[in-house]
């Protein structure tokens, strides 16, 4: 193979990897992860609706998307929780060469298992492991791939403070025929919040949140890169409804030459039954 052909192949594979990888990063449920290490009660049902305004850039070209994840969580027992998530994507501005349409993405199914929980008068500490994957049941699924993910979450609640550390490792767009994924990704997320009891409003709590997210992406083709978000936000919590909002300020590494993240705005509601 001569040099120009080789160069073209590497370029096209890099673009393909960036294209496939973009689906992975758009469908994650990052943001507002302040109950990560704690499994909910048995028979607890949580329905989470969100709107995310996301800006990505490839070179000087912007890509704005409106993502609307819907998450349903059920406590099978006090130790085991199942979660099903799907995301509707509406494309706003798209100045890139990528073809994007408005559609439901592949669903993601996850199980979370309580590994440790200690509740005292002074603090609560919980550790939970999880495993899940997106699976291609929709006709428009990208390359009929799966995105398996495993992780470990820890939550520490001293008094009115909350510290939640989430760690996940994802095989992005794993193709069962080719027996490889587009990228391997490490995600680390730390959320700190503090409950402020609202006097005069019984059973409502305001909780300012500060999240720090880090993602290390190792694609099969192209260079590894890192990016992250520094995300201030807040939650308003009542016994059955939780309102949450977060502004994610993107921090891209210098080695991130392909797809770059812009800032994101998240607003959401959780209903707890």
């Amino acid at each position, binding site marked *: 193979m001569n040099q120009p052909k080789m160069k073209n192949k590497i370029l096209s594979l890099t673009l393909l990897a960036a294209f496939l990888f973009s689906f992975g990063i758009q469908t994650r449920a990052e943001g507002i992860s302040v109950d990560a290490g704690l499994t909910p009660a048995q028979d607890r049902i949580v329905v989470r609706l969100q709107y995310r305004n996301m800006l990505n850039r490839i070179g000087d070209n912007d890509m704005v998307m409106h993502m609307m994840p819907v998450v349903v969580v059920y406590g099978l027992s006090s130790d085991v929780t199942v979660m099903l998530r799907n995301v509707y994507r509406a494309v706003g501005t798209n100045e890139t060469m990528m073809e994007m349409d408005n559609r439901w993405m592949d669903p993601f199914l996850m199980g979370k298992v309580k590994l440790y*929980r200690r509740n*005292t008068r002074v603090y609560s500490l919980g550790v939970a492991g999880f495993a899940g994957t997106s699976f291609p049941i929709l006709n428009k699924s990208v390359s009929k791939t799966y995105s398996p993910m495993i992780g470990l979450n820890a939550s520490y609640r001293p008094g009115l403070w909350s510290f939640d550390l989430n760690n996940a490792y994802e095989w992005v767009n794993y193709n069962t025929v080719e027996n490889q994924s587009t990228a391997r990704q490490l995600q680390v997320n730390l959320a700190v919040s503090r409950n402020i009891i609202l006097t005069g409003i019984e059973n409502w709590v305001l909780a300012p949140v500060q999240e720090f997210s880090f993602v290390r992406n190792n694609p099969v083709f192209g260079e590894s890169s890192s990016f992250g978000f520094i995300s201030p936000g807040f939650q308003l919590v009542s016994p059955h409804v939780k309102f949450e909002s977060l502004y994610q300020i993107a921090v891209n590494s210098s080695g991130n030459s392909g797809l770059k993240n812009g800032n994101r705005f998240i607003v959401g509601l959780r209903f707890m039954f």
Partner: protein
Amino acid sequence: MSTTANSVFAASSEKPVFVSEKDTTQNSIVCYEVYGMDCPGCQSALEKQVKKIDGVADAKASFKEKQVIVELKAGANVSEEEIEKRIKKANFTPGKKIEPAKNEE
């Protein structure tokens, strides 16, 4: 929820059982310390679990007071063990049986 405590402790049984007085139509109250609740969402999760107990008329949990107040139907037999089991199913830890904290608000 009524704050009149009409329950008597049935010491003869192997497991402690709260028995509402049979000659009254009034419900009775028991209260437990509960550890692990940190928001109003935790309250509703615990209340849902405790209300599943046969003989429980109502339950009010408070993450601020770290307690759950359980209202038993008149004449209902509810074991301590059953209440503790439900607190654990909500992923919280039961503490001592206590007098309900008075809300000053």
